[in-house]
């Protein structure tokens, strides 16, 4: 148990230090963005007096370190500040957007696994046959397709030509569950196809390793057929490397989600972030990026903890 506690404490320490570093970076980068926030907000016709007054109101005339401390201090107290352009608190703007991105990433990941695990197993079992080569080739094609292009292709086929599903937009789950589902299918599928293609290679190599293990050979020797043997004895072992890759891929999925949100006009964190950058709504940019960083770090920490669940040896500190 002490091993577990030490593991957890170590992870949490790394988590906090990384967050702090990220906050400094985010603040430094947004402060260095070109363009005068006051000018952007007041538009082309602003008078110099109005600009100066707004700069003072925004605190743009205060030194950088003070502004940084005020921002971090506020966040620790749960206050991400006020979005200057819309006048709403940053957290209040992010909350409904987070739900959209959350659903998208969740279904995108699940879909990617549903594609990658079966396809990866085929690629491993049939690695010297045409089926295996076919899966590999398809995975290569899938990885070569940019997310936005995949999305546009799906839209022009499923939404424009067949008119089966809406081309874009979003309806909240609470408002209309059927509409919600129909609006999420294409974006989630886009993300799944591209992410699934990436994952296939990892699944394949994880299973190929299993195929050489003694326990698999034993299972085969006592009469298990290849696929059930692989599922029963191989999945848990392959899961270790798969979970690691999933954690690492999360940031890629988030980036993919930002692009997918554009293609499908989804009101998620990605569109919020892009509009905020274009409009120089700095506190909103900082808040959103900080939140995304937090999400990725939190998932990576969860991945580390999940090793403990998947692999009992790590719980007791035994080595192999």
């Amino acid at each position: 148990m002490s091993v577990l506690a030490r593991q957890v404490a170590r992870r949490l320490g790394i988590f906090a230090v990384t967050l702090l570093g990220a906050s400094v970076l985010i603040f430094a980068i947004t402060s260095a963005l070109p363009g005068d926030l006051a000018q952007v907000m007041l538009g082309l016709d602003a008078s110099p007096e109005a600009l100066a007054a707004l700069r003072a109101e925004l605190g743009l005339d205060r030194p950088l370190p003070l502004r940084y401390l005020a921002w971090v201090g506020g966040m620790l107290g749960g206050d991400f500040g006020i979005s200057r352009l819309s006048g709403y608190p940053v957290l209040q703007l992010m909350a409904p957007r987070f739900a959209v991105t959350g659903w998208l990433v969740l279904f995108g990941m699940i879909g990617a696994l549903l594609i990658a695990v079966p396809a990866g197993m085929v690629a491993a079992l049939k690695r010297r046959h045409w089926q295996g080569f076919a899966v590999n080739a398809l995975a290569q094609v899938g990885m070569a397709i940019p997310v936005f292009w995949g999305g546009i292709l799906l839209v022009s086929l499923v939404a424009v030509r067949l008119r089966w599903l809406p081309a874009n937009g979003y309806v909240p789950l609470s408002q209309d569950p059927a509409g919600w589902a129909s609006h999420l299918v294409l974006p989630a599928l886009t993300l799944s196809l591209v992410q699934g293609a990436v994952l296939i290679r990892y699944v394949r190599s994880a299973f190929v390793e299993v195929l050489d293990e003694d326990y698999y050979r034993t299972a085969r020797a006592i009469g298990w057929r290849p696929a059930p043997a692989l599922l029963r004895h191989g999945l848990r072992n392959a899961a270790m490397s798969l979970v690691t890759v999933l954690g690492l891929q999360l940031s890629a999925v988030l980036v993919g989600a930002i692009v997918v949100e554009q293609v499908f006009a989804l009101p998620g964190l990605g569109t919020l972030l892009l509009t905020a950058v274009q409009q120089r709504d700095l506190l909103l940019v900082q808040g959103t990026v900080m939140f995304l960083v937090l999400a990725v770090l939190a998932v990576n920490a969860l991945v580390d903890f999940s090793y403990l669940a998947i692999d009992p040896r790590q719980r007791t500190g035994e080595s192999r």
Partner: protein
Amino acid sequence: MDNRASRSTRAGRRGPWALLLVLALTAVIAGCTPAGQQTTPAGDRHTLVVGATLEPASMDAFHNSAASIPQVLLYNVYETLVKVDSDGKLKPLLAQGWEVSPDRLTYTFHLNPAAKFASGAALDATAVKTGFEKLKADTKLTETLRAQAAIVASVEAPEASTVVFTLTRPSLMWLYDMSSTLGMVVDPTFTGDLATATAGSGPYTLQKLNKGTSVVLGKSPSYWGTPGRFDEVTFRYIADPNAQNAAMLSGEIDVVSNLQAPESLAQFSDTSRFSVIRGTTNGEVVLGLNHQTKALQDLRVRQALTMAIDRTALRDTVWNGEGTLIGSMAVPTDPWYTDLSGTNPYDPARARELLADAGYAEGLTLRLRVPTTAYATKSAKFVASQLRDVGVTATIEELDFNRWLAEVFTPDDAGKSNYDMTIVAHVEARDLGKFANPDYYWHYADPEFVRLFTEADESGTADQVAGMQSAVKFLADDAAAIWLFALPNLVITDAGITGIPQNATTLSFDLTTIASA
């Protein structure tokens, strides 16, 4: 054995795939419902979905200058004393008629006695007076509105249906300003927040703000005039032009309020499903010249640059042949518009001669700094290649719009602007007055032009049009800038919808004339 193995693998795969299929099918069935609604005969249509590009951050047009706010609210939710129609003409709205005193300083408006706010409160002279005085006293008003309001010396309400505005100096531009955001009459009994609620007198009221996706208007049940045609109108915001086209093609929106990518017009060629409306906007795509740059102070150089650019070919290449060639700072819906696109016509040989005369036979290098908007970056490449043919090197720099604002549009502390040439669309209505401001980023303000413009603005209606015509012609002859083309108003609608205004003469997407046959 291998065959058996592959069979069982296939069987193993069937589970998840079947699940996906079921998921997809459910969604298809769910998705069919809205698609089915789209095919209702247009005559039974009770709702309208309008696709637009930029989502307004707030509903308060007085404290936020974003054009996306009046796009939804002007004439639809808030009304003005006078309105501008699709041909650019002033028409009665809340005022049945108006008179202007001979010295052009006093405007007397006669309000429609039937007019009332959506709340039921009376829209009388006192409401107009109170509203305008509150607006004038508002220190946080947007800069444009503050400047427009400053010209009003006083507002009086001698009778319930008569309101009198007195100006500090004559100006006909003012009446146009009053037909836009400045003139929107707000219910004085309203005490809430205009950023999230509305208090107008129009045929629609704000029903719902769906942050990030749409703004929904509902029919005002107690509208004083001809009631709104639709029970519900949704403005759906889709920033990506491809996504917006896809939504139109798949039938989720009924109208594309302004097609962002003219090269995609061909997608809507099926006339049984779509109507394409071609008109003009107020947007002049101006290749701005910095009159602080020594070479550009020479008329011969400015003429040569104009003659070096084949503007017809540019419009065909850059904007799919859509839009009007204008030749000066006026668009076809301006009362003083005349076609000046033939001034300094395309003639590269003559351009080379003029450059040689001006002492640039050896060549000339100019910085072309443009914002990263589609029309600007595409035009810049075309312009640079044509200028190369006459020996002028244009070095293109693309700047993100905010950087463009900070570095090109805003002069530095010494009043110098950091560019030689730039391209941007000036979308404000009747905006040739910008050339009369020496501090504006072109730094033009030729004294003769300033005289022509000021005299025209302060003169009577008939003289004004003639006066403005001379001012506009002066700009063209003096090659004060190079006018590439006027941005077209390209609206795509469902074939059953009629009455969409052809031209975007105001910031409003005017719903009041739309019908479905």
